[in-house]
């Protein structure tokens, strides 16, 4: 019979299956709660949302009321922009350029023509969710101005305007074929451009034209007018639910465009809730760790005669610790595997509802890493406790 087998037979005496079961049950509950809440949190704050728009926030300078009456535009100062760029949650920042000239657009729909005064804005190309091949304008050579408009506007037209006026409804694909005439005037000049809708945007609640067109048109038709300070900026961020964003906007009196403000609030509340639940899981895990330590001490106390004798025979403290360490590592590894399986099963119950809310699931790696970290800390904590206890019993008796 080998050394380790005989050693194991001596050392496993007094191991109480009841105590192991009690530790395993409580530790499992704690681990499952921690894993599941981390998974839930990573799921709901997952940036890969279905419509791909949560990465972008449109922030507008607040309107104080006076400005709206006098017609004077309030905008971000250069310092304000710089300050915002330096916020940790800002990955990239783009400034909206407003048109300093009048624009009206006409659509010829056979019998019905539609013409309206309208506004244009532009923003750096990298923020526009349009095909780059279609998103350019070179003065003099390009005769069609590409336009991206908010998807909301299309919906507004289709369901609000077209149906009440008996106008044809327009689909995404059809819209590209619409012949649009943009009439631009200002600085004593007037010119008609052909324009084409190249896309509908979820992240932009505006009518956008390429920056190159805007810069050129502003220089020609707005001529010499002092530059208007921008009143809206677009920000790319990793976590639109970050509470710091909300706080920053509130502190500075900025407004957030679209319904992302709500998403941010909701995800903040969900974040707080999951933190509380994860906290409960952590407390249970801590208690189970206490139970593990007590069981270990009790076992070592019951077996102290054997361990002392083994060390008098010439066994090292590491050989004796090794047996108990392997046992605890094996139990904890098994518990981790079971907890991961439970987490996977539980998270499957919310994947459906979340997906229908436009949130696709996240990778379980963060949750698994959190569980593994807890498991490893518990294992090493227990091993250190065993080692210290056995080391103490090695010291010659006084």
């Amino acid at each position: 019979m080998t050394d380790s087998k005989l050693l194991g037979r001596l050392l496993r005496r007094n191991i109480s299956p009841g105590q192991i079961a009690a530790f395993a049950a409580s530790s499992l509950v704690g681990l499952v709660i921690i894993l599941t809440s981390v998974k839930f949190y990573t799921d709901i704050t997952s940036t890969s949302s279905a419509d791909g728009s949560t990465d972008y926030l449109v922030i507008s300078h607040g309107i104080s009321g006076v400005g709206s009456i006098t017609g004077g535009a309030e905008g971000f100062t250069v310092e304000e922009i710089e300050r915002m760029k330096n916020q940790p949650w800002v990955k990239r920042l783009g400034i909206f350029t407003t048109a300093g000239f009048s624009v009206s657009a006409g659509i010829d729909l056979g019998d019905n023509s539609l013409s309206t005064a309208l506004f244009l804005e532009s923003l750096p190309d990298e923020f526009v969710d349009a095909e780059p091949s279609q998103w350019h304008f070179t003065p003099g050579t390009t005769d069609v101005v590409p336009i991206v408009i908010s998807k909301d506007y299309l919906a507004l037209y289709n369901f609000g305007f077209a149906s009440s006026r008996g106008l044809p409804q327009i689909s995404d694909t059809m819209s590209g074929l619409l012949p649009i005439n943009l009439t631009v005037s200002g600085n004593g000049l007037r010119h008609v451009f052909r324009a084409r809708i190249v896309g509908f945007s979820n992240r932009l609640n505006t009518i956008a034209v390429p920056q190159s067109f805007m810069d050129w048109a502003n220089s020609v038709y707005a001529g010499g007018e002092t530059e208007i300070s921008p009143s809206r900026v677009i920000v790319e961020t990793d976590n639109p639910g970050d509470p710091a964003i909300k706080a920053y906007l509130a502190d500075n009196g900025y407004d957030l465009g679209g319904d992302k403000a709500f998403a941010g609030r909701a995800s903040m509340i969900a974040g707080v809730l999951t933190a509380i639940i994860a906290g409960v899981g952590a407390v249970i895990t801590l208690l189970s760790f206490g139970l593990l330590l007590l069981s270990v001490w009790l076992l070592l106390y019951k077996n102290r005669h054997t361990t002392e004798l083994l060390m008098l025979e010439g066994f090292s403290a590491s050989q004796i610790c090794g047996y108990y360490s392997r046992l605890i590592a094996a139990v904890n590894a098994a518990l981790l595997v079971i907890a991961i399986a439970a987490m996977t099963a539980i998270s499957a119950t919310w994947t459906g509802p979340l997906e229908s809310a436009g949130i696709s699931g996240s990778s379980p790696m963060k949750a698994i890493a959190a569980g593994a970290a807890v498991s490893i800390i518990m294992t090493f904590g227990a091993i250190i406790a065993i080692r210290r206890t056995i080391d103490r019993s090695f010291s010659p008796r006084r």
Partner: protein
Amino acid sequence: MIQTISIHGLIPEVFADENAGLQSDIWLSDRTITIDRGSRVLVESSSGKGKSSLISFIYGRRTDYNGTIAFDGNDIRLLDKARWTALRRRALAWLPQEMLLFPELTARENVEIKMSLTGWRPAEWIEEAFERLGIADRIDAQVGRMSVGQQQRVAIIRAMAQPSDFILLDEPVSHLDTESNRAVAAFIEEEAGSTGAGIIVTSVGNPLLLNYTTTYAL
């Protein structure tokens, strides 16, 4: 390897206060007592004079003494755990008076667990040893079910299942008849002879039958 064990001014702490009428060759000895590898030393006394304490001090099991014990001039109080572990595997064979076998293991397993540590002697050595000491029929019995005399012989075999420079035997034959005493003595003498080990034996008047080079009264 340990060549000499030297003892100087040694006294168990429990005796330190009442040493007035102490008559001992070892306790509080002014001169250094040196025990060489290869020697045969008998430590004799009546009960309660600290024989087991002396053996426990030398084996590093207890440190509740004043004075100095040294291996080759090195104070054994300064040895660390790893060193003691190595000495117990390679240099010091020990038979405690209370034997300290594992009662839940068989006689054979009690020896095997020591051999697994030392790798000393081939496997068949165990059966030969049990045969020589007259307990071959009990080799697979659980130690907890053996008589004290049988257990004493198992413990002696276990103590021999390792290389050694010194063999410390605390009342090794207290439960054995003369015939068994002779068998044990021959066995130990042979094992010690193969390694050149020194032997330190304690006794209350029924010593292991060896040819002692020195006898101390404790």
